[in-house]
């Protein structure tokens, strides 16, 4: 049951779900949720390959960096969301059109 492919399939499902969330949702926070899912799918792949293929811990280190970057990204992203909400009173992504035209 446990093999590289099973982890890859879980990661693929996570990735697709994250993609669907990112594309289908118009709520900026929900898009960030999708991004988290996609990042975690990638990190899971790294760790799985690290165990089943490369036999060293570089994959672990990579996924640690992914976690760090995800944390930084969500902090900045949510700060932008809050600022955006203060200005536009909405967090609908289609409302972010100030630079259009």
């Amino acid at each position: 049951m446990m093999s590289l492919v099973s982890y890859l399939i879980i990661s693929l499902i996570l990735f697709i779900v994250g993609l669907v969330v990112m594309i289908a949702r118009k709520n900026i926070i929900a898009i960030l949720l999708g991004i988290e899912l996609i990042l975690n799918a990638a990190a899971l792949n790294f760790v799985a390959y690290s165990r089943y293929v490369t036999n060293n811990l570089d994959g672990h280190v990579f996924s640690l960096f992914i976690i760090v970057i995800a944390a930084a990204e969500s902090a900045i992203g949510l700060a932008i969301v809050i600022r955006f909400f203060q200005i536009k009173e909405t967090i609908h992504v289609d409302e972010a059109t100030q630079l259009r035209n």
Partner: protein
Amino acid sequence: MEYTVGNIAPIFLSPVIAFVINAFFGRKLPRQGDWLATLSIFISFIFSARIFGDFVFGTFATDFFIHKTFTWFDLSHGANIWKVDMGIYIDNMAAIMLLMVSGVAFLIHLFSTWYMDHDEKHGRFFVFLPLFTSAMLGLVLSDNLFSLFIFWEIMGFCSYSLIGIYNKKEAAGDASLKAFMTTRVGDVFLLLGMVAIWMVIGSVAYVDIYAAIAEGKFAGQTVIGISLATFAGLCIFLGGMGKSAQFPLHVWLPDAMMGPTPGSALIHAATMVAAGVYLSLRMYPLMVLGDLTWFIAVIGAITAFGAATIALVQTDIKAVLAFSTISQLGYMMIGVGVGSYNAAFMHLITHAIFKACLFLSAGSVIHSVHEQEMPKLGGLRKYLPYTHFAMMCCTLAIAGIPFFSGFVSKDRILGDALYFGFIAGQNPLLAIVPILGFAGAGLTAFYMFRMMFLTFYGENRMGHHDSHGDEHAHGDHHHGHDIHHEHLDARSNVPLLILSVFTLGVWFAGSLTGQGIVKVFGEKTEWFKILVEAPKVERFVKHPREAFGSTDSRVKAELPKAKYDHQSGYAGPNPDDHKIHSAHVVGAWMSIVIAFLGVFIAFLMYIKKSIKPLASMFPGYTETLKNKYYFDNLYVDVIIKKGLLGLNRFLSWFDMGIFDRFAVDGWAAVNRVLFKASKWFDNVVVDAIGVDGTGVAVNLFNLVLRIVQSGKIQFYFIMLIVVLASYIWTVNI
């Protein structure tokens, strides 16, 4: 005999720490931190004294040195060595220099705590003074030109700050700027010289330079047609000229007395001006290789004589001292030039001591009577007995009276100069060096005693200027009867007395007069002559380097001892030795005669008043001297106003007259024709076809792009994914 970072670094670091503390917290400390600065210099003095003791009192050989390095940064890549080392280099010369600098600086600090008391710039003064001292100590400790240059520039900055410390006076600000800019001229050349050396040997450490000279790496290298050794040596010497106020670049030093007198003492006596001579001594092998010694000797002679003549007519007590400093620095340069390495360095040390004492004494006089114009002083002997004693000792020393240190060192220089000029078979024109040297010595004796007589002897003239006395801030202090009698005080005149003790010649020479004629304490007191000698460059080839942190692994018992043998007699294998000895004997008698002659004339003129001052006989020349040979005017009126402004005017004329009229206007005419053509082209081709056509094209293209460039982030995701997927499907991994 452990030499580690721990017992060398405090010499340099303790004044730096005092500087940092005073700079940031000085105002909160009691007495604005002056005790801290003084204490820090005392710590340096203690550590320097230890090194001095080891080096001088029979522990090490003549040619022993400590050289410890660490890598500052290493950018080497493969075969390209690009590495800069820093380190410490202490030989006998540096050890003596360290003791002199820290000792004199300590006494000056001590004196300053009295002199600057209740001064509004008290705290600021004691910020820069330790930094200045630390920079000089660091310069002496440096093992390469690069760190020497760093400390050199720190000193330049500190002298700038100290000269201009009374920043509300415009003259002080101007003087500080002048000092800064003038020395900068020399510094640029010094940097150039360093670059030239780096080009050849890839290092600027002294030992590497010596080794390169010994290995002949400079041979055949040329820069702009002249030998590279000459070029580098000349550039470095020009740097030294700027710092040591030699002939064309001497103009900053007289103005430097705008600062407080103890600061002047530190600048003029112990530290900054000595740096140039010290550098020339360090680079002596390079000067010899570059055949520059005659040039150095001539510059030194001109400076020594010229400055002495200017000093004849100065009325400000500090100005006399300032010009005498320039003159004495000239003697040191003569010493370097004529190959009397040891005497030049001895003169540096002796001069540092007696000139520091002279400046401090002048400071004592000024602080006591608030007057520095000599014609308004006089008869201060009975008010300021200790100051008078100290100043008299130093004046005797500088005048070259036997038994005093100035006689010993200056006479050796002059003796070598005599040999150099007349006997060595050089170009006969170089006889100018000893002639100017001896003439300058006579003038030195004269003007120094003139200063003494005007200041301390005769009747008191303090009462004669009541009419304009109120101009001074301390109006009630300068009446003659208000001068308080001087008392022995640890801070005000004990430093002077300590310094005046060391104006005796026996400390430096083995005999009373330094000629080996009357030997006092045996051969061992001729330490100076034995220990200090020009570096033997062959010794430095392939000399191993010691890591900075390592302790000295050599056992004391195995170190070669300095031999106090009979080197002082001029009876070596050199056939010229006999001639040198004769020259020295002749020189000694000549300088004694000349010195006494100078003193005697001064006595007749200013005490007996049997000879009228010569000024009235040569009014034109006196005027020239008063204006310092018009050097300031030369620089300002001729070089800057005529030269630079003239160039400026020429350029502006060229710009407005030639360039503007022909090039610009002509070009405009050409353009007018082109304009007609291009207007037609623009209207027909560009506008109709290009612009409107492009607009239409863009509009069409836009229809497509507008759909893609929707600004919707999700649409971009979709595009991204589709492109990636199609890539993966096509490449068929």
